[in-house]
């Protein structure tokens, strides 16, 4: 083969590779995710806790965040709703649709890692960035929020493990504790 014909063959191979890389995936192609339980019973309490602890408007209750959390304490899904939970103050409690929006945001952050964690029954939740950030093992602008084994941590990790600890999720709302209020 002459140098010139070698060059032509090389060029043709390069064009073929380039064309191949531009070919579209089938429109019905799906990437499977082994996802944690999305039901209202299993994820609703976790979503409510996340809204309370992480989803305020100055933190993850913002559309610009990678992890977006919806709920009545922060960002609302419907433009007609306000960031107010109490009905008597003109608000609406967090809706199941908002729980699902938070679910999709959370699971969609690292779907392959999430699959691995869930498939392994949540044995190593710190594979997930959001757990590492909450526990402070990775830099987090919002600081260290969870201590492994506390009610906040158990609420989320028990959901990842497949059995949401509802008591932990309920107790998690009282962390951190603040000094008692003045007598009213």
């Amino acid at each position, binding site marked *: 083969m002459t140098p010139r014909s070698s060059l032509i063959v090389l060029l043709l191979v390069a064009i073929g590779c380039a064309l191949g890389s531009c070919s579209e995936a089938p429109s019905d192609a799906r990437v499977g995710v082994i996802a944690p339980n999305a039901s209202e019973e299993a994820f609703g309490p976790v979503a409510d806790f996340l809204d309370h602890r992480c989803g305020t*408007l100055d933190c993850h209750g913002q559309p610009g965040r990678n992890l977006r959390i919806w709920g009545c*304490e922060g960002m*609302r899904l419907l433009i007609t709703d*306000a960031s107010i939970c109490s009905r008597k103050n003109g608000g609406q409690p967090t809706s199941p649709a908002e729980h699902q929006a938070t679910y999709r945001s959370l699971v969609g952050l690292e779907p392959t890692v999430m699959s691995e964690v869930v498939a392994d029954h949540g044995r190593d939740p710190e594979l997930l960035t959001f757990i590492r950030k909450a526990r402070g093992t990775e830099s987090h602008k919002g600081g260290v929020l969870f201590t492994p084994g506390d009610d906040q941590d158990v609420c989320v990790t028990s959901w990842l493990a497949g059995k949401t600890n509802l008591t932990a999720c309920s107790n998690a709302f009282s962390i*951190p504790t603040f*000094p008692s*209020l003045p007598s009213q």
Partner: protein
Amino acid sequence: MRYLPFLLTLALAPGCQDPTHDNAVDALGGEAPGIPKGPLHRAGQPCLTCHGGEGPANTEFSVAGTVYLLSYQDTVAPGTTVLVEDSTGVAGNVVTNAAGSFFINGNDWHPVFPLQVTLTYGNITKQMPVQIGRAGSCADCHLAGSRGGPNTPGRIWIALNQSKLAQATQPAQ
């Protein structure tokens, strides 16, 4: 050659500016007519945009905001006691001024987030139902002129309506 360090500093100085911060400051607009710069100016605006340590204001605040009397009206609430409690258990009180504004000087206290806030106006005491995660400016979330929307709980208010406010005793000034 003698002036090289000076010229280099001059050349690099614009690169140190934060255009996001500059835009946020510009977005606040000018001072309201008749209100000089000082504790009574710019009620309802996000105070820490300028007073957060990045300038242009010299005084640095850690927490600051404006309180209104009613949920639907921009009438300010002077004399409101604002109790700020931080997550380490430290608490402090500050009282709103004639413009309804309060501020905690950064030299006095930098509370550790998250924070819990309680307002007392006369005999009305209201606890903020949501913790503050990291914003020192109340108006980052509590937009003045708003009753609430998908990204704001609206202004900070003492009473939902006039009849509730009428039940309040006047705060001690």
